[in-house]
Each structure stands twice: as C-alpha cells, then as structure tokens.
C-alpha cells in the first residue's frame, strides 16, 4: 500500500486517491451489510383472527394517521388502512398466507413487517368465517349427547371427543392470546426505540478514527513533499 502511495505520489495525486480509496473501502463495507434501515418502525402481531400493528418514529413518538398497506406473499394488495391516534391499526386476517405489513408515514418514511404463514392460525381464520352460534350449538348438542348416551354409543362418544378437543384448543388459544397480549404490547413498546448511548459514542469514535486516518495519509504526503523539495 505504501509502495503504491509512493508511486501515486509521483503523479501528484496520492492524497486525493487515498482519501477516495478510503471512502471506497467504507462503501464496500457498508454495502455488505443487509439493508434493514428505517426511521419509522412497525410492529405487528397476531391475536386469534386479528393482526394488531403498532407504528412509531424513533424515540417512541407514535406515527398517527399513516397508511398501513397489507400485502400477501405474492405481493398482491389485500387491504389498506390508517393508524389511529396511538399509531395502532388492526385488521381481521383476510386469508391464510404470509402477510407483509407496510407502513407509509409522511415525508418519505417507510417500514415493513412480515408475519410468516406459520403464525397465522388457520382454525381461527376458518372459525372467523363460521358463525359463533354454530360452534356453540354443536358443542351443546355434543355434550348433551354425551350425558344422555354416556358410554353406550361409542361412535357418538368419539365424535363428541373430537369436537371438544377442537373446542379446548380454541379456548386455550384464546386465553393464551389474552395472557400474551400484555407481553406483546411490551415487545411492541420496546421495538424500534431510539439509539442507545453505545451506538452514539461508537459513531463519534468512528468519526474521530476517520479523522486520524485521513490526517495520517495527508501528513505522509506532506512529509514526502517536504523531503522531495
């Protein structure tokens, strides 16, 4: 590298070349890192058949009145809405697919969040399409049939077990969603906060390091010029 510097120095452009080279190196390093940057952030989570989203700017200010657009895995637009005063927006899951939730805040700010297909509860979605009373009816009739024909009718028993298992699963899901909602809210609150002190100090350190490197190379060039003349 220093040989190269000496060589370039003959052409009289060592310093500029080196500063340029340095920025080039920074660029190469930067472009290697996957781009995930956003100044607004959106956090989305599933509760039963509904997706809740919370949007905010860094430092916790909520993104009010921003449009939220939901895409499926193929990039088709499913629905669109606006966030409320708290930066929140919720919608019923329209179909079983991975959902990409895109937030478009004002002034060129944008963020997205993807909900993988595994997180979407198929039964909750299909129950959503089925009227609630229907399930209750079937549950009641099945429990009735169970109490009347206790043990005598095997086929009726197995059928009732099947339904009640489904019912239990649904109830567990519901209560889990209820219990986890506080944790989800906490997660949403902590997601996308402002930068920490470590990052700030680190950034300033980077700048001073860059100054040092730039000065090193320019001083080399200066010394070379002095000794040359």
């Amino acid at each position: 590298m220093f040989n190269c510097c000496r060589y370039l120095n003959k052409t009289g452009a060592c310093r500029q070349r080196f500063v340029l080279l340095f920025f080039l190196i920074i660029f190469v390093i930067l472009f290697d890192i996957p781009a995930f940057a956003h100044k607004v952030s959106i956090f989305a989570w599933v509760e039963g058949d509904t997706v809740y989203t919370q949007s905010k700017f860094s430092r916790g200010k909520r993104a009010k009145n921003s449009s939220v657009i939901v895409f499926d895995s193929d990039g088709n637009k499913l629905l669109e809405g606006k966030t409320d005063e708290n930066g929140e927006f919720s919608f019923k899951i329209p179909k079983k697919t991975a959902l990409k939730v895109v937030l478009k805040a004002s002034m060129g700010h944008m963020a997205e969040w993807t909900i993988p297909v595994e997180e979407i509860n198929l039964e909750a979605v299909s129950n959503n399409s089925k009227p609630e009373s229907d399930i209750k009816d079937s549950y009641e009739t099945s429990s009735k049939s169970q109490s009347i024909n206790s043990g005598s009718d095997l086929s009726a028993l197995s059928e009732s077990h099947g339904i009640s298992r489904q019912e239990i699963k649904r109830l567990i899901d519901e209560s889990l969603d209820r219990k986890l909602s506080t944790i989800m809210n906490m997660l949403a609150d902590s997601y996308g906060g402002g930068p920490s002190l470590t990052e700030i100090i680190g950034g300033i350190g980077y700048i001073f390091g860059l100054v040092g490197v730039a000065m090193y190379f320019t001083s080399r060039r200066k010394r070379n010029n002095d000794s040359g003349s």
Partner: protein
Amino acid sequence: MHISEGVLSPAILTGGAALTVIGVGIGLKSIDYEEIPYMGILTAGFFVASLIHIPIGPASVHLVLNGMLGLILGWKAFPAILVGLALQALLFQFGGITTLGINTLNMAFPAVICYYLFGWGVKKNSGRLVFIITAFAAGCCAVLFAGILVGLSLYLNGDAFLPAAKLLVAAHLPVMLIEGILTATCALFLRKVKPDILEGYYV
C-alpha cells in the same frame, strides 16, 4: 429529512448517488491537512444533531445542522455529511444505505447553496449585525432548502409536490428557527475564539 429505503425508485436513487459522488469529489479535492480536524468535529456534530428531537409540529423532526456545516466547510460539507449519514444509517437505522446518495444530496447541496448565498457575510471583519443575520439565514435556509429538495425527490417519485413539500416545510419550521439561532450563536463564538475558521478555509 432521512428518506427511508424502498420509498424511491432506483432511477432517482442512482441519480442522487451520482450527483453526490460529484459533490463529494469536489469537496475532497479541496481538503487541506489543517482542515481535517474541523471536518471531523463538524461531522460528529452533524451525526449527533439528528438525535436531538424537536417535539413540536406534526411529525418527528430533529436538528440537521447542515447550514452550519455549509457555512464553515463549503463544498467539503459533502464528504462530511456523507460520513455522518452513513454512520446514522448504520448505527441508528435513520435513512438507509441505498438512500445514502439522495439523502446526502438533499442535505449537503443546500449547505453549499447557503455557503454561496450567505458565506460572504460570515467573515471576521464584517459588521456584527450583518454577521448575525447572514449566519441565522444560512442555518434557517439550509433546512428550508433541504425540505424542498426532499419534497422534490418524493415528487419525482410520483407523489404530489405541493402537499409533500408543504408538510415538510411546516414540520421543520421550529427546526429552522432553532438552527438559525444555533448557527448564529456558533458563528459568533467562532468569530471570538478562532476567526480563522471563518476566513481562510474556503473552496
């Protein structure tokens, strides 16, 4: 002020990046050994300024300080702002790596414009009133022009220009005022402590 990734089309991103490369080239050409520490300190100031949020107005806005950089550094504001923005994108997730070019252009070009518009007044032997007014105007207008440029970038992307620019300028009105005062204060301080900074180191 930071445009996020995925908002603008690739054509605008490359155009902005190309213009930024030209600006950075001009800036680097005029760097002198003695100026590098100033550039570093101002870059650090720019880097941290974006963390100071102004809780007034409809959206989340923060200080930019591009007027001050332009006034002192001239064309060298381009490389300084580029480094500041790169670190902000990397560490704070403000803006983004792909939008680095257009964001640098949007903030550094107004800095250079303000340097040419108001730089003549911010000298050690100009009158005190002229000095304060031009420094204030530089800090103020750099943010204003940056807002207009961001609006223009969004307009080129297909958004309506006037609503976007109006919103941007309205959101940054308090910032403009604060930056004007800040730039004037800093320039006055520099005039008292180290007037050479305002004098010799121009393009």
